[in-house]
C-alpha cells in the first residue's frame, strides 16, 4: 500500500520542520503519530529517505515507545493505567472488563474502528487511581461496574457527532 499524495507532502513538511534539530527523530515521529494516528511502514521508509536514518533504527524507536503505533488506532483510545498505584486498586480487573466487552486485547482495535485499548504505565494521575483515559478525558476512580458506562458514553458522543454532521 503506497502513501497518498497528501500524506507524502505532509510527512515531508514535518521532516523539514524538525530536520535541523540535534535529534529530530522523536519529534518527527510524534508529529506523524499525532497527525495520522499511526506510523505505517511506508511512512517509516519515507522518513528514512528524508532523514538518512536507517529504517531499522526508526522501526526500533517506533516499536520501543508505546505512544507510537504501527496500526491505525480507533476513534476512541481507551487507556487503562496499570501503573503501581492504579494496579493495586484493581485496574487489571478494569482492563479485563474492557477486553471482555469489546472483544479485543490491549493494543488492538475493534473491527469497526471505534475503540482501541491501550495498557498504560502511570499517566501521573495516581491520586485518581484507578484512572482510565479516553482520548483527552480522564475518568477517576473507575470500578469494574463503570466500564460499560464509559463505553456507552463514547457511543453516545459518536452518535451525537454523527447527527450534528448530518
Amino acid at each position, binding site marked *: 500500500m503506497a502513501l497518498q499524495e497528501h500524506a507524502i507532502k505532509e510527512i515531508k513538511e514535518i521532516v523539514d520542520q524538525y530536520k535541523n534539530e540535534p535529534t529530530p527523530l522523536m519529534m518527527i515521529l510524534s508529529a506523524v503519530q499525532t497527525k495520522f494516528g499511526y506510523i505505517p511502514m511506508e511512512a517509516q521508509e519515507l522518513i*528514512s529517505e528524508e532523514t538518512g536514518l536507517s529504517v*531499522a533504527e526508526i*522501526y526500533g524507536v517506533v*516499536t520501543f515507545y508505546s505512544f507510537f503505533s504501527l496500526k491505525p488506532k480507533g476513534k476512541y483510545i481507551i487507556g487503562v493505567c496499570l501503573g503501581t498505584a492504579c494496579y493495586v486498586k484493581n485496574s487489571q480487573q478494569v482492563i479485563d472488563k474492557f477486553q471482555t466487552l469489546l472483544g479485543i486485547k490491549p493494543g488492538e482495535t475493534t473491527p469497526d474502528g471505534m475503540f482501541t485499548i491501550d495498557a498504560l504505565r502511570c499517566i501521573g494521575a495516581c491520586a485518581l487511581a484507578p484512572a482510565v483515559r479516553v482520548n483527552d478525558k480522564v475518568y477517576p476512580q473507575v470500578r469494574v461496574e463503570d466500564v460499560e458506562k464509559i463505553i456507552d458514553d463514547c457511543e453516545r458522543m459518536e452518535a451525537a457527532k454523527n447527527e450534528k454532521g448530518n
Partner: protein
Amino acid sequence: MALVNIKIDGIEYKVDSSLTVLEAAKQCGYNIPSLCSFNHGKCSKASCRVCLVEVKGARGLVASCVYPVNDGMEISINSQKATEARRVSVELLLSNHNQDCQSCRKNQNCELLRVAQLVGAREGMFKGEKTPTTYDDLSPSLIRDTSKCVLCGRCIEQCKSVQGIGILGFENRGFKTIVGPAYNKSFNNVACLQCGQCVTVCPTGALMEKGEIDKVDSAFKAGKFVVVQTAPAVRAALGEEFGMPIGTPVTGKMVTALKRLGFARVYDTNFAADLTIMEEANELLERINNGGKLPMITSCSPGWVNYAEQYYGDILGHLSTCKSPHEMEGAVIKSYFAEKNGIKPEDIFVVSIMPCTAKKFEKERPECRGVNNLPDVDAVLTTRELATYIRRAGIEFNRLPNSEFDQDIMGEYTGAGVIFGATGGVMEAALRTAYFWLTGENADSLLKCEPVRGLEGVKEASFKIKDMDVKVAVVSSMKAAKPILDDIRAGKSPYAFIEIMGCPGGCINGGGQPYVRSCMLPNEDIDIEDTYRAKRAAALYSEDERQTVRRSHENTQVQALYKEYLKKPGSHKAHELLHTSYNDRGHKLK
C-alpha cells in the same frame, strides 16, 4: 598521554587517563569479562552487565566497559560483591538463551560460553518464560537465530560504523526486545550486503554464516569430480583456527589438508586473480582509449557489488564487468579444464574456500552461470568452515607437511594474484600489468607500490605511465566508499580507476575469517584487535615477495589459456565466461 594512579584489588598501577576501567585493567593484566564492549569502549553500550566491578565511592557497581578511570580510583574486580554480580548477570543472560552448546557451530569461539565458565555460572538458576525468537536462514550467506542473542548491540554498531548503513537495530522493548532488520525481515529481503561484518563481532552463535559443508559431502557422495579452490586471504588466517599466531601463512599445510580431504584437484584462486587482471586491465585500457565510462571500479568484492546494486544503482556502468576471481576460476574449470580432461561439466562440482560470506550469495546469482547454464561455483565454504571440515576429518593440521597446489593447466599463479587478499592488492596487480601493456616494459617500482598499501579506508595515488597521468583510489569499507561514490554520481570524480573492497582492510578481514577477540586469544599481544589486519596482510605481501613471477601477464598457464581457448582478453569467449552484468536493486528496504 596523561597518566593517573589507580588501585586494582589493592595493588597500585599507572594508566592512561583516557581509558575505561575495563581497558585499563586489561593493560594491567586483568581480563574483566564482557560481551558487549567493543572498539575500546568507544562503541560499548554497557548492555550486557557482565563487566561489573566495584569502585570505591561509586553508587552501586559500575559497568567497567564505559566507566572512565580517574586519579586515585580504587577498583575491585575480585570482591565478593563484584564476582557475585557478574555471575548473576551471566546466569540471567543464560536463562533467556537456548543453550544448545553441544551442537552449536560457534562452540569453540563462543564468548558467552567462555564468560559463563569464567564467572562460574551455575546451571538453571533462573527458569521461566523465554523471549519469542526468530530463526532466519533465507539468505544464502547469513543466519540469524535470536534464541542465542544476548542483545549486546555489537552487530548494530558494526553495520553502522563500518559499512555506514545500519541494517540491524533493536526492535520492541523490554522482554520482547530482539535484534534484526526492520520489521524483523530476513537479511535476504533488506538491502544487506551479506558481508558478514556483523558475524565477526557477534559474541554468540546468534549471527553466523550459512554452513555448506553438507553440500560438499553430498557432492562427494554423488560421485562428482570435486575441485576446490582457495582465495588468497584464506592462507593468511586459517592457521589461527589451529592456534597459530595471527599472520602465520599456512599455504602448504592448507593444500595438504585439502588433498587429504579427497578433492580431485586443489587449485589456487590466484590463477583466476591473474586472469581477472588480464581482463580488467584490458577493460580499463579499452575504456580509456574508447571514451568509456570512467572511473572504472573493480568488481571482485561481492559485498561491494551488493552495496552498489542496492545503494548506487545509477552508477553501475562504472563497475568493471569482470566476474570475481573465484567465479572466473569456476567458469574456466567447467569449460576449458572439463574439455581438456574429457569430463562432463555437469559432473564437476566446484568448491570455493573464501574469507567471505557474500561469496555465498554471489554464487547463487543467475548472472554467475556459464557453461550449460550451470553455476560457475557450486559451494562456498568460509575459512572458518574449512577449519571445521579439516577437524572433522581427524586431520591434525599443525603436524601436516607442506605440499604444492596442483600444477596442471591452471595451477600456476603469480605474486600479483596473491596480494588480491589485501586492500590495494588488486590495484597494485593491475598497475603492474597495465604499465607493461602501455610501455612494453616492467616497472620495478610497482613491485612494492607503497601508496596503495596500508589499511586506511581511502588511499589515493597518481602514476605517470608514458605521457598519461593515471589517478587512482583504493577504498575499503562502504562507509569510506560513500563520499567517493557521491563524487562519481555528481560527475566530479578525478580518478580513472578505483579499487573498492567491501570489508575494512580487504579480504583478509572478510566476514568469513577466523574470529579475533583479544579475550579469547591470551597468547596474542593485547592490542591484537588493532593489529591483526596488518599482520594478515603482511603474510600475503611476503608470499608475493617469495614468488619469482610477480606480474599477472607473465603467468604462462594464463597465456596458454588465452592462446588455446579464449584467444585474447575481452574476446567474445572471454565475455561469455568471465564477464557479468548488474541490476539496480535500489527498491530493497534500507
